[in-house]
C-alpha cells in the first residue's frame, strides 16, 4: 500500500509538471515572441527567447510612445476591435444569461409541455455547424441592415450561447433546495415572487458561471465575426487579428500579432485566475452530472 501511494504520488507529480508544460508552453512562447522586435523576426529568430527584449510591438499595437513607421493605423484598428469585442461579448452575455435563466428555471422547476423539446432544441443548436448559416445570414442581414453592426453579431451569439447557458443553469438549478421556494409559496408568495426573491439569490453563483462561459464563447467566436462584418466599426478582435497580414504575406508581423494575442489573452487569464473553481464546476455540471 505504501509503495503504491509513493508510486502514485511520483506519477502524479510528473503528470502535474507535464500538464503545466503542455498548457503553458505555447502561452510562454507567444509572450516571448511579443518582445522580439520586427528586425529580429524579419531576420529569422528560431530561438525561444528574444535576443533583445523590446516593447516596440506593444507600443505599435496600443499606440503609445513612438510608433514604427508603417504601423500608424494598426493601433487604432486594434483598439476599435477591442472595444467591439468587449461591447459585443458583454451585451450578448447579459442578454443570453437573462433569457437562459428564465428558461432554465422553468426546465428545472416547473412541469410543462414541451420541456423535452426545448432541451433537445438546445442540444441540436449546440451542435449546429455555424458555417452553414453564414450564407443565409449574410443575405438576410444585408436586407435588414444588420450587416456590419453590433446587433448583427449579438443576435447570433445569443442563439449559440443559449444552449450552453440553459444546460449549465438547469443543472445548477436542480441543486437548489426546493423547500425554500415552497416555503415562500406557503407564506403566500406567487410562483413569480418565489422565483425572484428566493431562487435568484441562491442561483446567482450558477448564473455567474454561465455568464463566464458565454463570455468566453463570444470573445472567441470567429466564423460569424469575419463573415458578418466588413469594417472596424464592428469587427471583433479575432477577425481583426486575421487581417493583420502586413505588406509581405510570406513574412507576417510576428511580434505585432504576438503582442495583440497577449493583450486579448490577458482578460481570459484574469477571469480564469479569479474564477477557476466556478468555471470547472460549470463546464462539468452542464454536460455530466453525478
Amino acid at each position: 500500500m505504501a509503495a503504491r501511494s509513493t508510486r502514485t504520488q511520483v506519477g502524479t507529480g510528473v503528470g502535474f509538471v507535464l500538464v503545466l508544460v503542455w498548457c503553458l508552453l505555447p502561452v510562454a512562447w507567444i509572450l516571448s515572441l511579443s518582445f522580439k522586435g520586427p528586425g529580429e523576426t524579419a531576420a529569422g529568430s528560431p530561438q525561444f527567447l528574444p535576443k533583445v527584449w523590446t516593447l516596440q510591438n506593444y507600443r505599435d499595437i496600443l499606440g503609445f510612445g513612438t510608433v514604427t513607421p508603417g504601423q500608424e493605423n494598426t493601433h487604432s484598428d486594434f483598439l476599435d476591435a477591442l472595444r467591439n469585442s468587449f461591447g459585443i461579448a458583454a451585451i450578448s452575455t447579459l442578454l443570453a444569461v437573462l433569457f437562459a435563466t428564465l428558461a432554465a428555471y422553468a426546465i428545472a422547476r416547473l412541469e410543462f409541455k414541451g420541456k423535452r423539446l426545448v432541451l433537445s432544441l438546445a442540444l441540436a443548436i449546440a451542435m449546429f455547424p455555424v458555417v452553414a448559416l453564414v450564407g443565409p445570414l449574410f443575405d438576410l442581414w444585408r436586407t435588414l441592415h444588420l450587416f456590419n453592426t453590433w446587433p448583427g453579431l449579438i443576435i447570433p451569439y445569443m442563439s449559440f450561447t443559449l444552449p450552453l447557458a440553459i444546460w449549465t443553469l438547469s443543472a445548477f438549478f436542480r441543486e437548489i433546495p426546493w423547500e425554500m421556494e415552497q416555503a415562500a409559496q406557503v407564506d403566500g408568495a406567487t410562483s413569480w415572487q418565489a422565483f425572484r426573491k428566493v431562487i435568484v439569490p441562491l442561483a446567482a453563483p450558477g448564473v455567474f458561471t454561465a455568464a463566464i462561459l458565454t463570455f468566453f464563447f463570444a470573445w472567441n467566436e470567429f466564423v460569424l465575426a469575419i463573415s458578418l462584418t466588413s469594417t472596424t466599426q464592428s469587427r471583433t478582435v479575432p477577425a481583426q487579428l486575421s487581417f493583420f497580414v502586413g505588406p509581405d504575406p510570406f513574412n507576417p508581423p510576428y511580434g505585432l500579432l504576438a503582442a495583440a494575442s497577449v493583450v486579448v489573452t490577458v482578460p481570459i487569464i484574469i477571469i480564469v485566475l479569479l474564477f477557476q473553481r466556478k468555471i470547472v464546476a460549470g463546464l462539468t455540471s452542464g454536460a455530466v452530472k453525478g
Partner: protein
Amino acid sequence: MSAIAKAPGKPVVSDRARAENRLGQKLVLPAVIIMLLVTAWPMIQAIYLSLFRYRLTTPDDKAFVGLSNYGTVLTDSLFWQDTLNTVIIMVLTVAVELVIGFAFAMVMHRIVFARGAIRTSILIPYGIITVVSAYAWQFAFSLNNGFVNAWFAWLPWITPDTNWFGSHWPAMFAIMVSEIWKTTPFMALLLLAGLSQVSEDMIEAAEVDGATWWQRLWKVILPNMRAAIMVAVLFRALDAFRIFDNIYVMTRGAQDTESSSFLTYRQVIQQFQLGLGSALSVLLFLTVLLLAYLIVRLFRVDLAQARGEA
C-alpha cells in the same frame, strides 16, 4: 418532484398545474424564439436558396435549377477531398484528445497539492481565442521563426529546414496540434467529472482481489465512466467536425488542407456563390445531423442518464 405532487386520484389537470404549464412555456419562449430565429429560419432559407443558381455579384441571373447544385457539389472531387480532411481531423484529434485528456483527468483527480494551479493552467488553453492558438502554433512551426525545428531536429524526419506548411501532411499535423492543444482541456474536464463518479471502494476492491493497474483501468474505471466518455466524444467530435478557425489562420486552405466548413465559407463569402454555397450548407448540416445520430446510436449515449435525470 412534481410527479410526487401530482399524486394519483387528483384531477388530471388542476388549475395549479395549468398555471405552471403556462408559466413554464412563457419562461422558455424568449430563449426558444432567439434560438430558432438565427438557426431554423436561415436553414430554411438555405434549403430554398440551394435550389437556385444565385450569385450575389449577378443577382439578375438568379434562376431555379432544382437539385443541380447538389449534383455539382457531390460530383466535385474538391468536396470529397475536404470532407475526407475533415473526417481525418475529427477522428485523429478526438482520439488523441481522449488519451491525453484522460491522462490529465487522472492527474487532476489524484493530485493533492496545487489543485488551483492545475485548474488554472488547464483552463488557459480552454479560454484562449482559437485564432491566438492558431497563430502561436503557426509561429512555433514557422521555418524562420519557430522553435519546433530547432528543438526537435534530433528526430530523423525533422531538420532545421523542415517547411511544415509546404506540403499536405505536415500542414495537417500543425493544424491538428493547435486543435488538440486548444480543446484537450474541455475533454479533460468532462472526463474528470466522469472519473469522480467512479467509486474508490470498487477500485480498492479490485486491487485487493489482485487486479493489476492495467486491469483496474480497463475493467473497473473505464466501464464505470462510460457515459461521461461518450458525452465528451459526442461533443468534441461534432465540434472538431466544424473546424474552421485553425485552418483559416494557419494555411487558408493551402496544401489541400481545406475542411468542409472552410469550403462552405469560401463559396459563400469569398465567391458570393449563394446557391452553391447554400447547397454546401445543407449538406454540412445533414452530415452533422447524421454524425450526431450515428454517435448517439453506435455508442448508445444517454444524455439524460449522464445528467442524472433518468
